[in-house]
């Protein structure tokens, strides 16, 4: 639902960095999004085409690097990749888990032409 606000935020940051570099055009945006962040790629892309129109980001491509959710069991120290949102530790069954990766939600870089 809030992908529009998120997309506007991506545009704002991209333009800010592109202007600093005196870019003529932004061709690619590289995003890193963890599996636990509930964002829909298609939806961000849809809004992106709309909000970036008439800016130097127009027609740029969004790349999504999806990071798997790696968990650490706090009871037996096993590390494992979460397959669905509510799996306990596969070794000891504990639910006391710490998120190691998977909650990322950042702009990694942009590619520009000057």
């Amino acid at each position, binding site marked *: *639902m*809030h992908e529009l*606000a*998120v997309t506007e*935020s*991506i545009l*704002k*940051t*991209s333009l800010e*960095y*592109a202007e600093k*570099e005196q*870019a*003529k055009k932004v*061709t690619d945006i590289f*995003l890193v999004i963890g599996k*636990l*962040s*509930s964002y829909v790629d298609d939806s961000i892309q849809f809004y992106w085409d709309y909000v970036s129109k008439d800016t130097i980001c127009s027609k740029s491509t969004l790349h999504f690097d999806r990071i798997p959710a790696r968990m650490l069991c706090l009871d037996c120290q096993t590390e494992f990749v979460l397959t669905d*949102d*509510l799996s*306990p530790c596969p070794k000891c069954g504990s*639910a*006391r*888990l710490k998120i190691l990766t998977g909650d990322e*939600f*950042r*702009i*990694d*870089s*942009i*590619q*520009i*032409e*000057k």
Partner: protein
Amino acid sequence: MEVKKVPIVKSILSANDQVSYTNQKLLDQKGIFSINIMASPGAGKTSFILQTIKILSVNRKIGVIEGDTAPVTIDSDKMTAVGIPSVQINTGGDCHLDAMMIDEALKQLDLAKLDLIIVENVGNLICPAAFKLGTHMNVLIASVPEGDDKPYKYPAMYRGVDVLILNKIDLLPYVTFNQDYFLQGVKMLNPNLKTFLVSCKTGEGISVWTDWLAEHLKAKKK
């Protein structure tokens, strides 16, 4: 023509995060504790706030920020009726409050006269989880008639909160709600989540919550 890759490595919501940080700093300077109440529509956010105010406003000065997607003042009118200063935010269709809206709302409250600010977020179990407001405590209200499967369906919301209120427990005899199944899901997502069982209708359990919150406020002041 030169092609260049420019590193950014910045959270997508960093602008919001930055404002939430300044909001919290302002609240800390004024010695105000603040709570962000989140829930699905109809879980009982407004009733819960009114019940909390009824007990705590005896010796604490409370202000309320109400978030709604439509230009209505139904909730803030209820606060005004019990003598509580309140600000109504109309998000204009947006599904969540963000830090900028709270920044605006704080300007409309007389902060020198408040100890506690309660923010009622837009009724939604997805979007508010991602937007920090700068409040000190995130409270989620679940309610019995919503069903016992909600932790399993909205994991991000359950993962990010500090306190869980299960409301409408007076309905437990009448609806199918497996409390063990519900709490098992909660435990998996947020193992040490402080949980209170209440009924805003009968008042059951409310004083356990307000006693705990009062102690928490006292500890925070020191």
